[in-house]
């Protein structure tokens, strides 16, 4: 390596040399095998697969050059564990331990496909052997996730070989802080944490604010239910976050950064720690970075599990060691934030976009997306779609394309009902707005919001009152309790929603919910409180009939709310096996051998045991 005696890169050219050397070394190893170790695949046992590949590579002897690599989330979590063979981009899904020997023998040594592990398009039944052919990936455009699945997140050399830290080198060697901010401004980057505030404007305010030192913070306290975008970035490519922060800090004039990660992400903490250590060793963090006068250091702080700590002022209070509670933002944090010093906070994904903007230019970035929302957005696509997983799409794509093309449509032939975006601060978008474009302003207009990127798809079996109840319950549990409106208001909303879901709703309850929603929006202290009514408001807006059915007819149209629908046995489908009768805790089912069984509605408590147990799906919800 061309690094100096102490192992540090002391000049921009050092980094370039290092990269060239890494690349020249790489050609020697002909094939690599990328094992996804993102959260989904890890849960399905991928670390063990990686170990076995390593073992196999070792046993194969010196003549066979195979490099197994544990990489970050590849996205199509539904089909995990995912293994990709390079070169060739060969995509293997649902790989299990016994498959390893075969992949090794057939694909790595023999250049043949292992047919049964190849992805099959559920729509056409066609076998699609490479990543590029799979519709899930075809529609995507990856910037923040560009190197996820390509590099080993524990090796800084992997990142550098792919061009990592070259944006930092560019900034330090040829740009002024104002150049950096202007470039990000021209790119039109907006905060990916949910609010969509123009990133450059924030940076400039912080740069111009009086007071020193200045701080930059990376918000990795991702807490929305069903969201795992930031986690995938922190675990799959921690260096791009660090590089983004370095560039931002240079623009703002900060020498100290903090990454606030939720404690529930121990792997993110490990990966970031490791990445920071490696960057420090190479002199990419610390004093006089790459021989310049710019110095910057990053510390990691772990959250304590409070959702509210994702709110910027609460996060800063928590960083200071105080209770994580928000404060009024009448004086912005860019003027008086952490320890009352100018502080710039951005979300993980926002930081991850920055190196790409510097490298490829604002023109390239602003060419992607819509007029007011530029670039891409990462979503965690979950719920009732065929392909769940992590997706990155250009802004302006329609919800329909995300659900149908990337998500592969609704599971089990059911029909689409709504997609929930924006987490607990967002709302549900119904089928009639599926052609709406995903961008900050468009989603807000629909009563939802971009949010940090959770996207939960719901089918016909989902009760929208129950959805509102779920999110409201989440918010009630996670409210810090500081301000009256959120603490008392959300509780009162939940009380009404619970009543409706039990069939005890009263005429006028929806009006009461709307009244409370208006109160919350106007008077709550922080953004989490102000938006807390969105799940309820959007479901009332688009699914008022479901609320009315619950309240007026004590009926749950989606047949999800217990007690608000009946179970009946389909006489034709019933094989009179007696299983339901045996399992019914209330002895409400009668019937003899060969005689279709019947539920006595007077005795039935709607517990659903018969529905669960019937092997012939003869029990129906009506």
């Amino acid at each position, binding site marked *: 390596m061309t690094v100096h005696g102490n192992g540090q890169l002391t000049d921009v050219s050092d980094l370039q040399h290092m990269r060239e050397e890494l690349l020249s070394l790489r050609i020697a190893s002909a094939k690599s095998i990328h094992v996804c170790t993102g959260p989904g695949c890890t849960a399905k046992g991928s670390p063990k697969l990686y170990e076995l590949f390593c073992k196999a590579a070792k046993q194969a002897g010196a003549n066979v050059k195979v490099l197994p690599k544990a990489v970050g989330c590849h996205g199509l979590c539904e089909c995990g564990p995912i293994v990709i063979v390079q070169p060739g981009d060969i995509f293997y899904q649902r790989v299990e331990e016994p498959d390893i020997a075969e992949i090794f023998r057939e694909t790595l040594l023999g250049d043949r496909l292992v047919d049964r592990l190849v992805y099959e398009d559920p729509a056409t039944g066609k076998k699609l052997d490479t990543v590029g052919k799979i519709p899930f990936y075809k529609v995507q455009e990856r910037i923040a996730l560009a190197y996820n699945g390509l590099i080993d997140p524990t090796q800084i050399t992997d990142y550098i070989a792919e061009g990592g830290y070259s944006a930092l080198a560019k900034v330090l060697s040829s740009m002024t802080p104002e150049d950096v901010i202007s470039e990000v401004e021209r790119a039109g980057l907006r905060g990916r944490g949910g609010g969509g505030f123009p990133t450059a404007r924030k940076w400039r305010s912080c740069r111009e604010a009086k007071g020193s030192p200045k701080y930059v913070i990376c918000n990795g306290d991702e807490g929305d239910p069903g969201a795992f975008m930031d986690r995938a970035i922190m675990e799959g490519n921690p260096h791009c976050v660090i590089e983004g922060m370095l560039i931002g800090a240079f623009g703002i004039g900060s020498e100290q950064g903090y990454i606030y990660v939720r404690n529930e992400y121990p792997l993110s903490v490990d990966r970031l720690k490791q990445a920071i250590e490696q960057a420090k060793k190479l002199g990419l963090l610390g004093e006089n970075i790459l021989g310049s006068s710019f110095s910057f250091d990053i510390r990691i702080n772990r959250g304590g599990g409070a959702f509210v700590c994702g709110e910027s002022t609460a996060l800063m209070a928590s960083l200071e060691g105080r209770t994580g509670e928000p404060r009024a933002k009448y004086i912005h944090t860019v003027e008086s934030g952490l320890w009352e010093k100018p502080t710039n906070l951005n979300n993980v994904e926002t930081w991850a976009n920055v190196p790409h903007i510097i490298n490829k230019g604002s023109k390239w970035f602003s060419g992607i997306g819509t007029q007011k929302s530029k670039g891409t957005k990462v979503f965690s696509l979950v719920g009732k779609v065929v392909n769940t997983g992590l997706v990155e799409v250009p802004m302006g794509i329609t919800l329909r394309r995300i659900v149908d093309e990337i998500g592969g449509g609704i599971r089990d032939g059911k029909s689409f009902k709504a997609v929930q975006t924006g987490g607990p601060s967002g709302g549900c978008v119904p089928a009639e707005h599926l052609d709406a474009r995903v961008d900050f302003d468009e989603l807000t207009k629909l009563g939802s919001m971009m949010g940090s990127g959770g996207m939960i798809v719901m089918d016909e079996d989902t009760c929208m009152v129950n959805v509102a109840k779920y999110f409201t319950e989440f918010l009630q549990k996670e409210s810090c309790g500081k301000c009256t409106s959120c603490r008392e208001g959300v509780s009162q909303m939940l009380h009404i929603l619970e009543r409706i879901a039990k069939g005890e709703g009263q005429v006028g309850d929806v009006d009461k919910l709307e009244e409370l929603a208006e*109160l919350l929006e106007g008077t709550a202290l922080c953004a989490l409180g102000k938006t807390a009514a969105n799940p309820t408001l959007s479901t009332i807006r688009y699914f008022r009939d479901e609320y009315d059915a619950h309240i007026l007819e004590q009926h749950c149209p989606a047949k999800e709310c217990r007690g608000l629908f009946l179970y009946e046995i389909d006489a034709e489908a019933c094989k009179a096996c007696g299983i339901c009768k045996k399992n019914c805790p209330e002895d409400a089912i009668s019937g003899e051998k060969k005689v279709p069984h019947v539920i006595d509605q007077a005795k039935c408590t709607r517990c659903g045991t018969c529905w669960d147990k019937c092997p012939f799906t003869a029990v129906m919800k009506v």
Partner: protein
Amino acid sequence: MHALRNVLGQMSVHRSDESVEEGELMPTATIDGRKARIRQGDTILDAAKKAGIWIPTLCYHPAVSSDASCRICMVELDRGDWRQLVTACNYPVRRDIVVYVSSERAERARRGVMQLLLARAPESPELRALAERMGVKETPYPKVTESQRNCILCGLCVRVCEDLIGRSAIGFAGRGVERAVAAPFRQPSEDCIGCGACAAVCPVGTIKIRLHEDEREIEISPFKSRAKLAVCKKCGALVVSTQVGEMALGKIEMDSHKAMGKCEEYLERVHLCPKCRRSDIATRFGTVLAYRKE
């Protein structure tokens, strides 16, 4: 000691118009049409007071920092093409602004908050009186459970105990709906000196002082914290918690260095009840007058 210094410090920063320096920016706040010129950084509430406009407050007290947690002081701020609801007690006026206190939206917001608070502290006469003044008669919401009843969690007591008294004997425990003001582990606090400042600032009259004369103790309810009471050296009446006395004494001793030993008489007086203290002063004052006459 530290706490008392804080108290005095707070008092001395309390500004009056006479202290306005030349050339300082004095933005004008127009509140419901009435204008008030105030110092830059003063709050909408300061401006409203100057303009003679009443805004209800609960968690606000001039002696401690604003928390804006009760949300009862919502007013509408004119932002040009839109209006924003803000809390008057901590919104700093940095330039000329237009504010509406009695607009329909502001009043509805304040009344909505009051209705929520009434479900928490339905028995508080103080809160009911404020509600009435705001035109709120009843709350449409079910009351909170008995155990959480009557405290509106404004946090004034917590801030006073921490910022002014310097003891932090009480704080917030729990989160969200579980939030409560309590001493550590909900046990009587050893840090409580029985000064009663929390009871004095409680806007809903939930914190109370109880005297246990037989045991010569003062109790701060509902925290169950107790402190020993000092006895007047002259008449034997119960005076004040011994720890509060010691704190005051410490303050005097410290100042007496500056006063070059002229404060012995004050040190004596601390150990007297208010009645005996008055007679002590009167006696000494009489002596001084007699001396002058001579």
